[in-house]
């Protein structure tokens, strides 16, 4: 056991999936030619005014409800002032002291333990543009280019309580949070497109202490794994400092993926004074109880509720549950299949195994797949009834995945039905025994494993169509 306790809090930024930007009508589509999705308003030209996109507020309410937050009926926007070329107005419209929502939590499952991670607040703000530097950073570059397509896309910032005690918990919190946001559909949460970003705060303290240590903010965390690795590095670095009797400095540190280290960006003294003040160009946002309830009614069943149901109603192992609910469509596919064939564990094996493999190889989403819950349920039933072997079932599924053909037709066309005819199989069994005297000898000498080889030989001779159970029985009978 380490003598230090790690304290972690996370700030997550998620882009909302609105069609238009937070304060103008410009499109939010990703990947357009630079500076084609801009207008006087998001470019911050002299004289323009922001007009709040109500859909963005509604998405933010939805996210907040899904994260068990209290919606603040009266909230307002503020200006966060700082100079940077990707910020056309030189201020970001954000929410400072009256955010949209407060006091939520996320339930995480780590190492068989369940834990609630508190959410301090959620607020709405606008996205900045994107800078491309000819060198490493803006000061070391000959020139920099600015793309304002992203400027003004709505974001929610989700600030957690310092409730996480290990990098693994931080990782679990992030995956759960992402999952919840994806379930509600308010955000794509694509880290590779920058629609989900995370900054981490970490400090350590001697076990048993109730005072927080000096915290360090970590930036440039481009994946959930990066968050975990950076936190792991940082908790060791801080522990070393304390062991040597040195102090942790309050500062922002940059994670370098290639070296696997963090390095200092700026200390607290150099930190920006954002000169927040209420945005005079917007009126306060008043959210009625009716509005909140309307959004609440629309919420889908959330991952945690599914988790509880899958574990307790279906009796699925936690490992299977985590995997299946990590994707809302997959969870729905699973449930639809179970409804047609009530054997949750077998369905889960197929969904997590063969189906996931086929989807990965083809790059398809489960909703695009030709294999529907009906097809999968039918394939499992065919195995169950002994019509086809497990091996043949994989072939049927793959064929149906490619062509969309009916499983029964595939079995017929390909002659995949198992040979359960004893007379026919006895002939093959006799041939195999004759051809493999050594294995027969081994088996008779007590090497039970040799029977497996012989079964395999029969399967080979029948091109996999023999009913393995029956073959096993016949072999044992002959060799006794």
């Amino acid at each position, binding site marked *: 056991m380490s003598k230090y306790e790690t304290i972690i809090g996370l700030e997550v930024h998620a882009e909302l999936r609105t069609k238009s930007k937070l304060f103008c009508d410009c499109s939010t589509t990703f990947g357009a030619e630079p500076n084609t999705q801009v207008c*006087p308003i998001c*470019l*911050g*030209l*002299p*004289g*323009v*005014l*922001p*007009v*709040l996109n109500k859909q963005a507020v509604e998405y933010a309410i939805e996210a907040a409800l899904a994260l068990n937050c209290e919606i603040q009926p009266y909230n307002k926007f503020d*200006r966060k*002032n700082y*100079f940077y*070329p990707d910020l*056309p*107005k*030189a*201020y970001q419209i954000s929410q400072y002291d009256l955010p949209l929502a407060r006091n939520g939590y996320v339930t995480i499952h780590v190492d068989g333990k369940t834990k609630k991670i508190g959410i301090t607040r959620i607020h709405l703000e606008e996205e900045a543009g994107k800078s491309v530097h000819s060198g490493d950073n*803006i*000061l070391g570059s000959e020139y*920099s280019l*600015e793309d304002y397509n992203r400027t003004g896309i709505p974001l929610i910032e989700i600030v957690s309580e310092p409730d996480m005690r290990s990098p693994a918990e931080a990782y679990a919190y992030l995956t759960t949070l992402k999952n919840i946001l994806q379930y509600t559909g308010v955000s794509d949460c694509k880290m590779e497109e920058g629609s989900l970003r995370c900054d981490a705060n970490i400090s350590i303290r001697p076990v048993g202490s109730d005072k927080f240590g000096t915290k360090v903010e970590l930036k440039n965390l481009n994946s959930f794994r990066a968050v975990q690795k950076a936190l792991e590095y940082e908790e060791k670095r801080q522990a070393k400092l304390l062991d040597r009797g040195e102090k942790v400095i309050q500062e922002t540190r940059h994670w370098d993926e290639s070296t696997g280290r963090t390095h200092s960006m700026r200390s607290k003294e150099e930190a920006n*004074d954002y*000169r*927040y*003040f209420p945005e*005079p*160009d*917007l*009126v306060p946002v008043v959210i009625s109880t009716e509005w909140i309830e309307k959004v609440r009614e629309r919420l889908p069943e959330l991952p945690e509720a599914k988790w509880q149901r899958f574990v307790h109603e279906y009796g699925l192992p936690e490992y299977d549950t985590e995997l299946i609910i990590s994707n809302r469509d997959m969870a729905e596919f699973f449930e639809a299949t179970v409804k047609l064939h009530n054997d949750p564990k077998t369905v889960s094996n197929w969904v997590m195994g063969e189906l996931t493999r086929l989807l990965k190889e083809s790059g398809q989403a489960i909703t695009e797949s030709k294999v529907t819950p009906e097809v999968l349920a039918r394939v499992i039933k065919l195995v169950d009834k002994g019509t086809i072997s497990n091996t043949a079932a994989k072939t049927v599924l793959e064929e149906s995945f490619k062509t969309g053909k009916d499983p029964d037709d595939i079995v017929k066309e390909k002659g995949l039905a198992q040979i359960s005819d004893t007379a026919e199989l006895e002939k093959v069994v006799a041939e195999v025994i004759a051809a493999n005297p050594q294995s027969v000898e081994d088996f008779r000498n007590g090497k039970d494993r040799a029977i497996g080889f012989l079964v395999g030989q029969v399967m080979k001779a029948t091109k996999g169509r023999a009913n393995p159970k029956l073959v096993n029985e016949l072999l044992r009978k002959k060799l006794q």
Partner: protein
Amino acid sequence: MSLYQYTAHELRDMLRRKEVSAAEITDSVLERIDSLDSVIKAYVTVTAEVAKSMAKAVDAQLAQGSDLPELAGIPMGLKDNLNTKGIRTTCSSKMLENYISPYDSTVYEKLIKSMSPLLGKLNMDEFAMGSSTENSAFFNTANPWDLERVPGGSSGGSAAAVAADEAIFTLGSDTGGSIRQPAAFCGVVGLKPTYGRVSRYGLVAFASSLDQIGPITKDVTDAALVLTAIAGHDPMDSTSVNKEVPDYTKFLKEDVKGLKIGLPKEYFVEGIDPEVKTKVMETVQKLEEAGAEVKEISLPHTDAALATYYIIAPAEASSNLARYDGVRYGYRSETAPDVLTMYKKTRSEGFGPEVKRRIMLGTYALSSGYYDAYYLKAQKVRTLIVQDFQKAFEEVDVIVSSTTPTPAFKMGDKIDDPMSMYLSDMFTLPANMAAIPAISVPCGYTEAGLPVGFQIMGPAFGEGTILHVAYAVEKLTGARERRPKLPEKGGAACE
């Protein structure tokens, strides 16, 4: 009498009676600008072709016999902080000297719909900061009543143009008195509407919670006419109020019987010019004789208004003007080796001293550690000022005062003394703080022949009431009858 000398409502009637054409009106005013503006220097940009083509369109429509909007064919000018597509919008700043806007402000859009020809863009204090138009980065504008005096500010060009008949009407913007103070100095009518009555979309922001656009006109009827055309809710401005716009000319009548007029004792104190005070009191007496009830009232937080204003307005300005960083448009210092130096040099070189002074004031007021003591406290005092007025309007229909403590001062007199310059707005800025409408109307002249402005403040959305009282003042004092003596040809006066 030349066409440029008429008011908008007179020209409207003449057009409808087909006594004149829109082209003749516009040409007459353009010729006036041509002959006189080298002396007055009201215009930063003259848009003769834009004006002429609109006048042509009006005449064509008139020939077809179709209905015309009220302001059709009435040529006007816009303060140069109102965005006009394809036309320079400079804010009289080196920072935007060559800036051409890609979009129209809502007020200009409305005036285009009203078919009012645009004569050009008018000089102002840089980014609307100042009270004399001496803060223009380009040139000073002269007061038509005395060319050595300032026209007031920040809408000095807008007021001087109307006084000198270089426009039939103009629009200005008013953050602490920038419409009313120059209107008072130039002997014309200037109206600052209720905050939210007119869309601010396309007005280059100075202090967003105080800015309003309003008309500067030759008489009160024109003010009512123009306000009716530009007021109303705008989906592009969230702070514009969704409230029906009445025909404001319907409020105009001479009868003031039974009207309750409040005289705030805090507005008649030491420092107010005795001649100005006399003219204002004479006007009050005339109103009383005409049947109005006059009573003394108190607005106890008046003395805190100036200090409060000079926290809130610069704070908002420091943020609003941060976008002029040389990155995307406007002036950029080309000699900077890196982005940080570029910001510093661009803003040091592009802004004038008054703008820089206010940006520094505002940045300081918002800084961490000072925010509570300055900005937050100022907001609380602002609430007290609002309550002062709300209480007062429970007792009276309008509140009157002089618009300014003194008549127009000489150029150069106050430019090096910011505090005394700031004091010239002490009677006008409370209306901005309280978000209420206020109008300045000429009520008489000093011995030296300088106009004196009479200010009427009303409750929120009480534009009709203040126009009513202003109309009575105009009739009772006859101050509108006197016009500045200006040469027909500008060049001659200079010799």
